[in-house]
C-alpha cells in the first residue's frame, strides 16, 4: 500500500497511490495511515482520486483511521471515484465523513 503525505498549512494531505483498498491491503493501509496521522495537524484529508475500488474491509480501515484521529479531528475525504462513492452512499458512511469533490482550495496533491 503506497501513500504519499505532505504537510500543507493546517492540513496533512495524504494521497493513495494504489488503485484499490481491499481485504488484501486494508491492514497495511490502516497501519500506514495511523503512522502518518500521529503527526500533529489541525486537519487531515485523504485524496482518493486514484482509488477505483473499495470493499468493506477498506471501508472498515478508513473508519478505524477516523477513530484513531481522536475527538478533535475528523477524517476528510476527497476525489471519491464512482464505485467508492457508491460504497459510502449505500452504507450511509457519506454522512459521517467530510467529503470534498476535489481537494479543498489551496491544497495540491501530495508527493
Amino acid at each position, binding site marked *: 500500500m503506497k501513500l504519499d503525505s505532505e504537510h500543507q498549512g493546517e492540513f496533512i494531505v495524504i494521497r493513495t497511490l494504489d488503485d*484499490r483498498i*481491499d*481485504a*488484501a491491503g486494508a491492514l497495511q493501509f490502516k497501519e500506514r495511515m495511523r503512522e502518518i496521522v500521529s503527526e500533529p495537524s489541525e486537519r487531515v484529508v485523504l485524496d482518493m482520486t486514484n482509488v477505483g*475500488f473499495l*470493499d*468493506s*474491509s477498506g*471501508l*472498515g*480501515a478508513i*473508519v*478505524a483511521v*477516523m*477513530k484513531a484521529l481522536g475527538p478533535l479531528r475528523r477524517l476528510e475525504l476527497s476525489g471519491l471515484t*464512482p*464505485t467508492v462513492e*457508491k*460504497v459510502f452512499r*449505500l*452504507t*450511509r*458512511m457519506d*454522512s*459521517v465523513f467530510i467529503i470534498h469533490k476535489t481537494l479543498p482550495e489551496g491544497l495540491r496533491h501530495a508527493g
Partner: protein
Amino acid sequence: MLAERDTGISHSLEPAGTVRVVLASDHESVRSGLHHLFASEPMTSLSEESRGAVEIVLAEILNNVVEHAYAEFPGKIEICVTLRETYLFIRMVDTGLPMPDGELPIGRMSDPKLARDLPEGGFGWFLIRNLSQDLTYDRDGDQNILGFCISVDDRH
C-alpha cells in the same frame, strides 16, 4: 484449461457469454482472480457503473468465503458468470465450512450517524443484498453453492 500456477487461478473456455474462474482461498488470490475475471468476456462489455456494482458483490462474497468458510483449512472457490440479455447470472461454489444454521446472514445495518461507536465491519452482507437479486444458498454434500443475479441494464 489454462492454469496459472503462480496465482492458483485457472480459467476455462466456456460457451459464449459465460466465464468461469477458479481461485485459491486467500485475499491476494481474490484480488488477482477479480482482475482476471473482469478482463474476460462478457465482463469487458459492462458499463463502468455495472462493473463497480458486480465487483463489490463478488469481492464481498469472496472475502466472506476466505474468512469464514475457509477459516480452518484452505481450498478453491469457483465463480461462473453468464450474461443473458440484461442480467448476469452468477454461481459461486466452495468446499469450505457450511453457513451457520444453513442460512445466509440477513445483512442488516443501522444508521452509522446514530451509532455511539462507528462500526468498522458488518457492511459486507448489507452490500451484497443491496446490489444483488434472487440470492440463494444451498449446501450440497461438501459444497456451498451461492446463486444470484445482477441487472446490468445500462451496459453499452
